[in-house]
């Protein structure tokens, strides 16, 4: 197995162009497990740890540009304000050691339906995009809705690397919940991300571990958007009726297409999605209501 160590971004793109089967590695929390378990024996590893710009983030024009190699521990520490949903998800990743090494770029590269970053990225809105680049064609932005193609398949071309992810700074409450059969260090049995977007009066959702790819609960988003609009709840911040919360949960549940596996049954996954959807909606809306009332 070859081990490529580019000193900078251009070198990394060149290496990837020359050796498209090279597997990028940063924290190694996923790649090394697969190698150790002999699941995956890539011809080459492309170590991105010397490409320091990947471990940086900036905020420009209300958008967080999060380097692919910023570890979860720093997202929790530095970005809980602008990216509350992603920070909550980062809290649920592995152990402290894993959070010190693991990255959102790794989650996106692996594109596992169980990746913890995906639901909050989907929920954060349609402007979320993954910035990728190749030596031949330069940089392009892949909208998050077009990024996940199948189980562990994403929209990257073989010569492309993930550079950053662009996520709008939160303009409303965000929540994230994850089910696992122990209280830490679990792969998600099911996960749900929710974001309220008061500025454009939309609702974002993301479902994890309950379909071949991470996905949004589009009907649930539309239903809730409609109710908030019709009942002028964005303006009033008045409590949601219990039937609204219930219906939202049912629509999230209906959006999932889970399987039975060793981690949980499909029925359980559906069931937990409806509960998580109801609870996260209640928490988000309570927070939103408080903001409205304190602003009034």
């Amino acid at each position, binding site marked *: 197995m070859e081990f490529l160590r580019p000193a900078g971004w251009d070198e990394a793109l060149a290496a990837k162009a020359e050796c498209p089967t090279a597997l990028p590695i940063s924290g190694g929390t996923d790649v090394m497990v697969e190698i150790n*378990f*002999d699941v995956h024996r890539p011809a080459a590893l492309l170590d991105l740890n010397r490409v320091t710009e990947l471990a940086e983030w900036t905020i420009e024009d209300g958008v967080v540009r999060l380097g692919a190699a910023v570890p979860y521990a720093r997202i929790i520490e530095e970005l809980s304000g602008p990216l509350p949903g992603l920070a909550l998800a980062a*809290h649920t990743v592995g152990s402290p050691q894993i959070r010190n090494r693991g990255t959102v770029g790794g989650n996106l590269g692996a594109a596992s339906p169980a990746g913890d970053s995906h639901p909050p990225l989907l929920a954060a809105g349609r402007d979320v995009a993954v910035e990728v680049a190749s030596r031949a064609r330069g940089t392009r932005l892949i909208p998050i809705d077009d990024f996940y193609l199948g189980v562990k398949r994403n929209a990257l071309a073989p010569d492309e690397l993930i550079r950053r992810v662009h996520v709008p700074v939160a303009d409303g409450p965000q929540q994230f919940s994850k089910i696992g059969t122990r209280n830490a260090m679990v*792969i998600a049995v099911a996960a749900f991300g929710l974001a309220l977007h008061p500025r454009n009066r939309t609702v974002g959702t993301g479902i994890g571990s309950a379909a071949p790819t991470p996905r949004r609960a589009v009907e649930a988003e539309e239903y809730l958007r409609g109710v908030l609009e019709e009942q002028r709840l964005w303006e009033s911040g008045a409590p949601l009726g219990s039937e609204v919360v219930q219906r939202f949960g049912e629509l999230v549940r209906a959006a999932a297409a889970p399987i039975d596996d060793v981690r949980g049954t499909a*029925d359980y996954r559906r069931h937990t999605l409806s*509960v*998580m959807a109801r*609870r996260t909606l209640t928490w988000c809306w309570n927070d939103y209501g408080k903001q409205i009332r304190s602003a009034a």
Partner: protein
Amino acid sequence: MSTRTIQDQKNLRKLNQASRHGIGASPLRPDGTLKVKGEFAYSSDLWHEDMLWGMALRSPHPRATILSVDVSEALKTPGVHAVLTHEDIPGSKFYGLEIADQPALAIDKVRYHGEAIAIVAADHPETARRAVRKIKVEYRVLTPITTEEQCLHPETYGYVHEPQEYKSHAHGNICHEQRLVCGLGVTDEVRAMADVIVRGEYEVGMQDQAFLGPESGLAVPAEDGGVDLYVATQWLHVDRQQIAPVLGLPEEKVRLTLAGVGGAFGGREDLSMQIHACLLALRTGRPVKIVYSRDESFFGHVHRHPARLTYEHGATRDGKLVYSDARIVLDGGAYASASPAVVGNAASLGNGPYVIPNVRMHALALYSNNPSCGAMRGFGAVQAAFGYESQMDKLAAALDMDPVEFRRLNAMAEGDLMPTGQRIDAPAPVAELLRRVKDMPLPPPLDPTDPDIRTLPGARSNTSHGEGIVRGVGYSVGIKNVGFSEGFDDYSTARVRLEVIGGEPVAMVHTAMAEVGQGGITVHAQIARTELGVEQVTIHPANTEIGSAGSTSASRQTYMTGGAVKLAAEAVKQELIARGRRRYGWTQHDIELADGKVVSRSAGVLVPMVELLGDGAIELTREHHHRPTQPFDPQTGQGFGHVQYSFCANRAVVDVDVELGLVKVVELTAVQDVGKALNPLAVIGQIQGGCTQALGLAVMEEIIIRDGEVRNASFTDYLIPTILDTPPIPVEILELPDPNAPYGLRGVGEAPTVSATPSIVAAIRQATGIALNRIPVRPEHLTGTL
């Protein structure tokens, strides 16, 4: 947080003031800091110049006929030094702990998923891995025999071992069975004496020992044609007993030395890589190291028997047990391992620490094409305790009695008879343990207004901010035997040497005891200090140069090998005093060793030990045998079968998210009688560890098998408790001496693993109102989504 109650140790008080680090003190383990800092040398760290790496090819099928094995391509791989199959075995092709029914390498058929078929030695592990892939095996895949129904109807579903292949008294697919009848047994007349009858069927999933140090060792060929094996194991001598015949060598040419062990819990009682490494080393003439990967480890050792248990209990209106009728079916998997002894334990301990006048019990272990099962902490008593303790709660509910009071009313005590007819001739404070565990203060109630989510079910997964959380409390008590049973003489040997080194008296303790993390070497040093009045004690590496120390299992090592160290140290002490009498003509009868001196209570210091020892070391070896036991009668189960009993009572407090089916154990309290705590800190550690392993079985730990195939051979999907799952475990220790045991001590390590699981399930039942007849309890059971 722990309290310690000293009951009565007057008759045990020893002249111990001289040694601050003698028995009863809590000196720290020498390996503790190294392990925490990652500096401890485990068996997987072994290295030898010119060594090769061994690796096994394992069957992907649980049941298949092997039509052919072609190793030619593998042998041609550069860097490969040997590829062996069963045809290359020089001696006996079978081994086993109790029944030699397991081929060292598969012969013409495989009986479980992961069975080793061929082994490779290469100069690099990656080369070995590639060579393993090049071995071509042609299988005829057969439908595996995996369910109780299939196992018990071999004429329809087939035999795991064909009848002509049986190595023991097996019949059908039954590896071993034990019946037990006491009192009048269970008849219509007996049933008529009961006012209340409850029945239940229970199921226990397959738990794994989940030790962190994978199976590993290094075999070094010797000039005399023998082999030196450095290995992580639980019992050096019984390993050797099984290895030597397969190698075709006399035992003295197979020499074992214990390497650093990263946990065992029963999983290292059977052989894993030992024979394979030795075969490869002897074939290649080079040292061979084998280290299992994590997934291979799940295939490389036996597990806890999954069980199906049926219990019927009758009681009078005023709460006295009348009878118990039970059947325990254990899935032993492909090979016998320790199944017969596990069956004996399940049958003899399967009615719990209760006085039950009439009992009928049938326990059996099946051969199947599931993974082999054998020893794991609790050994047959764990599965049974989930059954009988669930029944006690059911009976209490049916009688409208408090579950603790109901248990206390029926608790056995010293002088009572076991269902085996064995009289309990040492303290059995079952009712007292229950009273104390109930009296321990409860944790504060959940604050629903502003809970810290880290303390809730789901914790940082952020599934609840207090919604759906219900608290429950449950109690249980259990019984475990200590030491090997049914007539087995599992003696221990110890050699103690006392000499002057650097102007100080120094003791050296040599045993073959496997230190697997239990703290035995710390205790051995404490015993030597107490008996010999010295401060400096060296522990000799454990090896087969000395006689057997028996297994580090059955809660027996402090009792048995600790007892041997005590005997040897006492003999050395007597020899030293005798030397003094000869030299100085002492006539006092109150001579002891303390603080490096020979002292008389009446006459004071007689002489410094250094002076009396001079250049003449004293070295003596002693064997320690426990009192003899008897086999159980196969039909009635009667017999003086066990050496000693150990009891623990627990209270579990749980919070359950009843909507999501997530559980957080809030507190798990234990009260245990340990006879005498030789190292109180280590005893508390054992009890807390045992409780944690029991917690794992209650709510998460299970090897998932589908049609004989293991589905979760990784720590990603075989979940063990993290620190966020492990609650505070307050421990109260009673010290009621057992007159038959060294220092009055009682084996500690397993009783809490037996008793704690049912208390957690009882607490979840109380919180949810759901019956819960299977462990581990999964979120699906609590949400109706299975």
